């Protein structure tokens, strides 16, 4: 249901990208190219298209109806809407970046399958995707979903009588997974080594314990009409609130920075977030994560350094400007090099399951309804959307397939068994029926009698108009002996959709 393309002056793009280049750019910047979106990129050029996307109205993230007790609201509508928006939404770049940020700042419905809680979190990701990283850090940290997921909510100051310390969970994971990582990084994302060639840790156990104390003294927001308590009952639609009586006011030392005594909960939190935000690891850390999710699993240090430089300063003295960072990721010479030349052998990344399915459906012009059966189907492939198994997300950024020495993170989900299940899901979409999804191959079937047009249609839909001869010759061996135009189109769509050449973006 793509809206009609808006009128664009012919001069908008100085050097309009070709079809293949536009399609390739959209594999990185959206949930997959469509004829309309390719035309739009060709008309506006890459920077112009990005500017338009930065202004696009965010997709709706809808409330989930609450059934009468004792029934609990289902989480499925949240997942269904994810796929609906990925396939149909006009704010393609924002939803794609928000999904990448979800995989960095992980909250999982495994622990919080309360739709309201996840909706608040997902709206923050959507809202902050093109904002400042410090705002994202603060919003997610104080969101009740993260508060519950990593236990910052109702985390009280240490108890000198029982000797119990503050809960270290959030303190540890915000540093390790969301912002800095375990090892000190050079500006290009490579690891700082000591005189013995060993990595230098970013922080130690004492930093964690001190940061855990800085994060004490927060509880759920007060429900309308309720009396505020030290530990409010769960509430999900506003940020957590401070309770000074359970905040640790002793002095602290975190990442080499002294925190004076008697700071309020809010002072300590802002202070801690600022120290993390200013840490030199943050730029290369964020740069590498976003590059990996959008463009390539093993970027060069130079590419990371260029994007990190933009994170550190957007050109106007502002640190953490995500809009500038996203632009830098997608317009970098390394991201664009293969638009006009062959990709390097290890360049690109495997389409993660949600991207594979959304991309295939967009390419085929499928109709996806608000309520659909895509989430359980994609979960079979190892990516149950919004249910990452742990705070380490669906897959880890450093995963390298057996025998490989460079990261290809999405391959962590590609076991031999999962690879077959991917082909089976393509089979279901092409030959069968997934609820709420309509794939109509008639436009391809109509071309079955015209070999050139038939090939061209599949080439433009699946492989940017660059179908390798050997691939098509092989596909046609099966198509040739398949009776019926519709079945011929199905065979070609199935073989191409399940092929490794399609499943890897490069």
């Amino acid at each position, binding site marked *: 249901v793509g809206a009609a393309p808006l009128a664009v002056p012919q001069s908008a793009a100085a050097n309009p990208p070709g079809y293949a280049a536009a399609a390739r750019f959209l594999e990185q910047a959206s949930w997959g190219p469509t004829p309309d979106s390719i035309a739009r990129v060709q008309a506006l050029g890459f920077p112009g298209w990005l500017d338009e996307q930065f202004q696009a109205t965010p997709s709706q993230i809808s409330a989930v109806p609450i059934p009468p007790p004792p029934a609990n609201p289902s989480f499925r509508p949240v997942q269904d809407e994810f796929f609906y928006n990925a396939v149909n939404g006009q704010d393609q770049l924002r939803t794609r970046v928000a999904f990448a940020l979800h995989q960095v700042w992980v909250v999982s419905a495994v622990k919080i399958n309360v739709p309201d809680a996840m909706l608040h979190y997902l709206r923050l990701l959507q809202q902050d995707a093109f904002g400042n990283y410090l705002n994202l850090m603060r919003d997610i940290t104080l969101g009740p979903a993260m508060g519950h997921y990593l236990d910052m909510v109702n985390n009280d100051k240490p108890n000198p009588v029982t000797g119990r310390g503050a809960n270290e969970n959030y303190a540890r994971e915000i540093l*390790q997974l969301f912002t800095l990582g*375990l090892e000190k990084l050079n500006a290009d994302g490579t690891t700082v080594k000591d005189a013995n060639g060993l990595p230098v840790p970013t922080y130690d156990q004492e930093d964690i314990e001190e940061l855990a104390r800085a994060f004490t003294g927060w509880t759920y927001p007060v429900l309308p009409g309720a009396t505020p308590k030290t530990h409010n009952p769960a509430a999900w639609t506003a940020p957590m609130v401070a309770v000074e009586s359970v905040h640790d006011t002793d002095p602290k030392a975190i990442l080499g920075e002294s925190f004076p005594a008697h700071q309020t909960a809010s002072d300590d939190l802002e202070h801690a977030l600022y120290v993390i935000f200013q840490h030199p690891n943050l730029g290369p850390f964020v740069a590498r994560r976003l590059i990996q999710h959008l463009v390539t699993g093993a970027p060069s240090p130079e590419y990371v350094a260029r994007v990190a430089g933009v994170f550190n300063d957007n050109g106007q003295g502002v640190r953490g400007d995500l809009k500038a960072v996203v632009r830098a990721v997608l317009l970098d010479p390394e991201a664009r090099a293969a638009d006009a030349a062959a990709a390097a052998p290890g360049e690109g990344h495997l389409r993660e399951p949600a991207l594979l399915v959304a991309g295939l459906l967009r390419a085929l012009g499928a109709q996806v309804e608000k309520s659909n059966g895509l989430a359980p189907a994609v979960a079979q492939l190892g990516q149950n959307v919004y249910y990452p198994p742990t705070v380490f997300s669906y897959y880890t950024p450093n995963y390298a397939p057996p025998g490989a020495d460079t990261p290809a993170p999405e391959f962590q989900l*590609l076991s031999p068994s999962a*690879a077959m299940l991917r*082909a089976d899901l393509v089979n279901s979409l092409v030959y069968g029926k997934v609820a709420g999804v309509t794939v109509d191959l008639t436009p391809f079937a109509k071309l079955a009698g015209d070999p050139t047009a038939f090939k061209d249609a599949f080439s433009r839909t699946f492989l940017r108009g660059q179908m390798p001869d050997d691939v098509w010759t092989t596909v046609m061996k099966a198509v040739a002996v*398949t009776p019926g135009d519709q079945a011929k189109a199905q065979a070609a769509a199935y073989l191409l959709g399940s092929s490794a*050449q399609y499943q890897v973006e490069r």
Partner: protein
Amino acid sequence: MATRRDFLKAGLAAGGALTWFGRMNALAATSANYRALVCVFLFGGNDSNNMVVPLDSGPLASYAKIRGTLALSPSTLSPFATSRGAAYGLHAQLKDLASLYQDKKLAIVANTGTLVAPLTRTDYLASKGAVPSNLFSHSDQQAEWQTSSAGSMATTGWGGRAADQVAYLNSSASFPTVVSVTGNAIFTVGSATRPAAVTPGAPLGLRGYSTSLAPAARMNALEQLLSLDGGSTLVSQAAGIMAEGLKDSAALNKAVTGAPALTTKFPSTTLGSQLQQVAKIIQVRDLMGLNRQVFFCSLGGFDTHTNQLADQDRLLGQLGPALAAFYSATVEMGVAEGVTTFTESDFSRTMQPNTNGGTDHAWGAHHFVLGGAVNGGDLYGKFPDVTLGGADDAGAEGRWIPTTSINQYGATLAAWFGVPNQRLGDVFPNIGNFQNKTLAFL
């Protein structure tokens, strides 16, 4: 307990199984020396302080005082004694495992963890001596347990390397030595060994095929496409993984076709389904020419920073019955002596609880080893001194410095599995740093 005769009768009664039995009987002799290792990884860091609780008065009082509201009541535990006369109790959800301990099929290995070399509190606090990198980090400690190296960047796991060493025993196999039933895991990767992956309950083979002309041509095309990589290593790797899946599932499908159902009932849980899948593969080991196998299973959710009592109760309630059912299945199949199951986990958790009903990341942990070949009914290694800031504490919160290393734990399993003593260093690079390379539990 089902005997082999019952098993045969059940199979013969299940019409159509004759062919399968014909194939099995022709191979009956090959399984005599069969051995398998089954790793059950408890992801998130299982709090073993509440899994194995000391019941002798001194340590019990110390445990109760430190744990406070997280202390388990001794009356709920399944008590057991060690050969040295010490008393302990297993968590209430592990009654089945307590019985297996009494039957001498289950051993407990105390305070085991990642170590480069033996380490004392004094040296640790003085930053002397080698310390594993990135202690207390989930991902790194999971990797170290699986790779048994002193760094998180290893590219092979010790399960895969152990399989490398015994490859000659599987020389005519139609199926990989190592199998994960829980997705990709570095434990399963060797230098020469590539793992199979089986998703419990998933069909063996691709959907939508038959032998008629068009589908057969489609399958041919799909297989041919796997050899076209367009100059991309990523495409080549993705295609290679799919090709492995096709080959492995065809081999497994051929072997299991007609196999009689096991009579052992498995719990309908994540781990129950995984272990049932492992049992089904062991059942057809001879038909696939496998004399040695390694399996990887997992259960997640052990990162109990809050709500620990209820959450761990639920998880151990899944672990105990699933392990017990699996042991019964190995008895049913007549391979109990040849199958050794063991636990791993990121780390244990602080003896000292935190302020909101949970515990934080720690280090050394107690683990289970189960099987007919296990010298069960005893606790091996050294139980930690349950004192905050005591001789075994890495700090002041009860993060026990391991007194048995994953190297020794793994080497004991690997040596039983068939890795020659002089090759243990190839599987466990740091084993030479430890005086006792193997323990007596196998």
